[in-house]
């Protein structure tokens, strides 16, 4: 699988706000299991430093790992993909 960086994706979330499926290149990946989740605060001392990114490391049904990043704007991106 190609490595994708910071690419916008559409994500569907569950009641906890965690991703349960996403669509990339018109392909739907899901259901997803969340392997890990963390947040990263942007540099507050720099212009535009408000907000934090939330990153979910998810595994697809096919067993692939993805890092899905929820941006401060609310948009989702795939920050990393793993084979």
């Amino acid at each position, binding site marked *: 699988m190609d490595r994708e960086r910071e690419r916008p994706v559409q994500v569907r979330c569950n009641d*906890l*706000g*965690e991703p349960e499926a996403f669509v990339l290149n018109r392909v739907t990946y899901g259901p997803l299991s*969340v*392997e*890990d*989740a*963390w*947040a*990263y*605060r942007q*540099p*507050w*001392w720099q212009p535009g430093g408000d907000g*934090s990114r*939330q990153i979910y490391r998810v595994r697809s049904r096919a067993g692939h790992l993805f890092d899905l990043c929820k941006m401060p704007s609310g948009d989702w991106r795939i920050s990393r993909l793993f084979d």
Partner: protein
Amino acid sequence: MAAHLHVHGPFSHLDGASSAADLAARAATLGHTALALTDHNSLSGAVVFQEACLAVGIRPIVGAELTVESALGTPSHITLLAPDQAGYRHLSQLISTAHLSRPRGQPMASQEALAAHAPYLIGLSGCRRGEVAHHLLLGHGEQAVEAARRLSGLFGKGRFFLEQEVCRLPGDRPLQRATRDLGQHLGISRVATSNAHYAVARDFWLHDLLVCIRTRCQVDDLGPERPMNDWQFLQSAEEMLCGLPDDPGAVAVTDQVAELCQPALPDARALFPAFALPPGLTSAEAYLRQLTERGAIWRYGQISSGLRQRIEEELAVIAQTNFTDYMLVVAEIAGWARKTGIRTSGRGSAADSVVAYCLGLTDVDAFARNLPFARFLSMGRTDPPDVDLDFDASRREEVAAHVAARYGPDHVAAVATYVRLEGRSAIREIGQALGLPRAELGAIARRVPYYVGADNLRQALVRVPELAQLQLEPGRMATLFAAAERLADWPRHLGTHLGGLVLTTGPVAEVMPLQMAAKGAVVGQFDKRDCEALGLIKIDLLHLRTLSAVDEAVTLSGVPWENIPSDDPATFHRLRQAETVGAFQLESPAQRALHRRMQGDRLEDVIAATALIRPGPIKGDMVAPFVRRRLGKEPVTYPAAGLEDVLQRTYGVVVYQEQVLEIAVRVAGFSPAEADQLRRTMSRARSKAQMQALGEVFCSRAVQRGVDGEAAGEIWQTLLGYASYGFAEGHAAAFGLIGYRTLYLLEHHSAVWYAALLNHQPMGYYPPQTLVTEARRRGIGVRGPDVNQSAMRWTVEDGALCCGLLQVRGLDQAEAERVLANRPYRTVRELAERTQLSRAALQQLAMAGALDGISSNRRNALWQIEGQAALRDLPDFTAARRLALEMAALGLAVSAHPLSFFRPSLERAGVLRTDQALCAPHRMQVAVAGALVRPHRPPTRSGERVVFLCLEDESGLLDVTVSEAVYRQSADAIFGPDAWLLAIEGTMREVGTGANLDAQRVTPLRTYLKQVGPAKLPLLR
């Protein structure tokens, strides 16, 4: 519902970004019923935290995050909670052990210590630095099981919990699952925490900034300890559940743990030790009565009926308020000191007590002065009385050692004081963390007045002239100011209270954790306020350098200190001339100006003067009416009928705290306790609203007692003027007496007194240079140091002041002793060989002029110290250079005054000496030059920022007043980092028998002389 059980506050020292009040308020907003505080190895914040929690109706849980030794290679963390008062005692002891068993600043409890106290505590496995989490993160399952099983065994079933951190860090989910599985495997409950370091997420930036300050990195730097996100706040239950989807039950367990914990701070009122009575006596009250009566005979010769009544009243209040043992304890300490020959003197409100006078705690006759005992102690008062005992500073530690020996070292501890973030330190520390240039920060910080708090920097930048002159662009500093405003008064590190000791019946480590302070003293983690809030009684054993100087001067001069005549005409003449530099409490420019105007001729004038130059009387405009009435230039009136006997001694003017109390009692019918509370509130009140509310209570109660409403308002306005810091009369009398007696020594044994003052620096208002200049002005010779002649310290030889070798900077006691032991010396080489002094020490001696007697000149001496043979024709430094080196080596100029080198140029420019200016006619325009001494900006009645300073030259001192307008133009010359020699143009103004210079232009001396004409000027710095 959830309770946060792992929370850091300000006393985690640069690892907690929210105040106790903010944490408690947030918990209350979330609907929590309990909240824990778990600072790193500290309970310092526990008292304030408890108050904050109770104020918002939630249950405080006392705890700590303890550092524990482990086999991990690095110390591990564990979260401990005190379930009850017994648990608190064990937690306090455990933290004490962690501190006292390790080098200062590196607290760590041993596993054995943890095991000893764990059965009394609730344990949480801790953060990622906890032993269990550490093993789980590394995938060391077996070690994790072993650690969890061991810890669970230490605390007991149902008292140890695995901590499920919800901090949204990488690896959180796998760790949470592993912790859940471990708990299920061992049957240990898990409990959710957010390891909170701030109340709300938006305060994350403050925590990050604090971590940068603590780890000395800048915000742009990467730092392993810096938080990577903003989730370490007091999360709601919903937020916790979202972050812990694999073990949601751990959130509910927080409530179960909280239910195990009750408020645990002790009520320390009953913890003061009972005084060990002499054999045959069974009652402390009877023993205090016996000592008091014995003291009354000593003080008064016989006990009159009035005196008997007063003593009985005082003893009754002391007994009913349970302070009998306290009085016996402090009396024993003072008595021991006197027997041991340690000079002591009591002050504070204790001077309002006849019992204290009879016990020898103070030297103020409260009976003769009719001082109200209620200022010291009264029924209904909950705060402890205040006996401030001053001791000869050089022997104060002997007194503390006696107390430790008598009551047991485990039962005595010094009270803490916390060095807090204030204006200057905020500029430097926050600025450096933000990456602002150090040089710029230093330039700003050096100009920030000491009284500017971290939360006032923004205003100070505009309002303080020397800062305004920097023309900083506020936008650049916006983040710094915002952080400083939030972190104002944040505790930075622990220090030792000047004299406060607490004594306890049981081990003091059970009452508050102990740790080592910088100077090796064992200090409790509670400060004065905390001790008072808990009911811990503090004993103030203070050190007063003046008493050290007195002891030395009295020994040398043979003057009977206690029998110094209180009506010595020469001493009062000196007072009226305001030549009081060196006299305790009477030497400041404001005091000298007052004495010139007041023309005092009795001890009572001195006592009043010490109380008048305080913010309360000054702001209340009490000084001028007092002086006018004292001189008979204004009739004596009273604010209300029936107050004559209260205010008679001060001509109808409110000068002392006792008078405020008495007026409140007589006019508004306050009880003594209520009146004292009024005084305390008035002294501390900051807002107009508070004062207005107080005034309404006062007036309404006065009206109820039949006082006319308008009159009540006027009386309140009189008291309102006093609403700032003022002295108790007893305190003023104690200080006034010492002040008068030191003036007597200054008058009759000047050289001895100056030598004593110079031997106990730093003390007093003026720097040593001013004392030396004053001595010389009085015709006392001043000799520099000499390796063949000088003693260790300042001495008097043939009427001249002789500089001691210890005045030489860089020469320590042992080196000075070697110099004395091996003399005489004929050459520099002999000196070097016999004393084996370091080259640096020898250079300092040469620069100070101490080798003048064994070397042809100072340059040659320095040459020889470098190992070279003496050069016959090597010329000496110029006189100015010699003086510059001398000042560098001694910290003062002994051989000449720096101004003398400018005198030819000054005379050509028409600049007067200070003694010439003092003789100039009223309103004459003059220019005077001198060294800047103690510029300061005290509160003024008008609110205007006026600078008072002294100019010092070879002929003496001149007091100068700088108006706000002039100050604004010349702020950097006065308060800048290089401020020293100045030329001041202005107008002379008569003040009583003396004069003052009203400045119109203040200029650095070199700049001034260049402006008035070409001159070759010496370089002294």
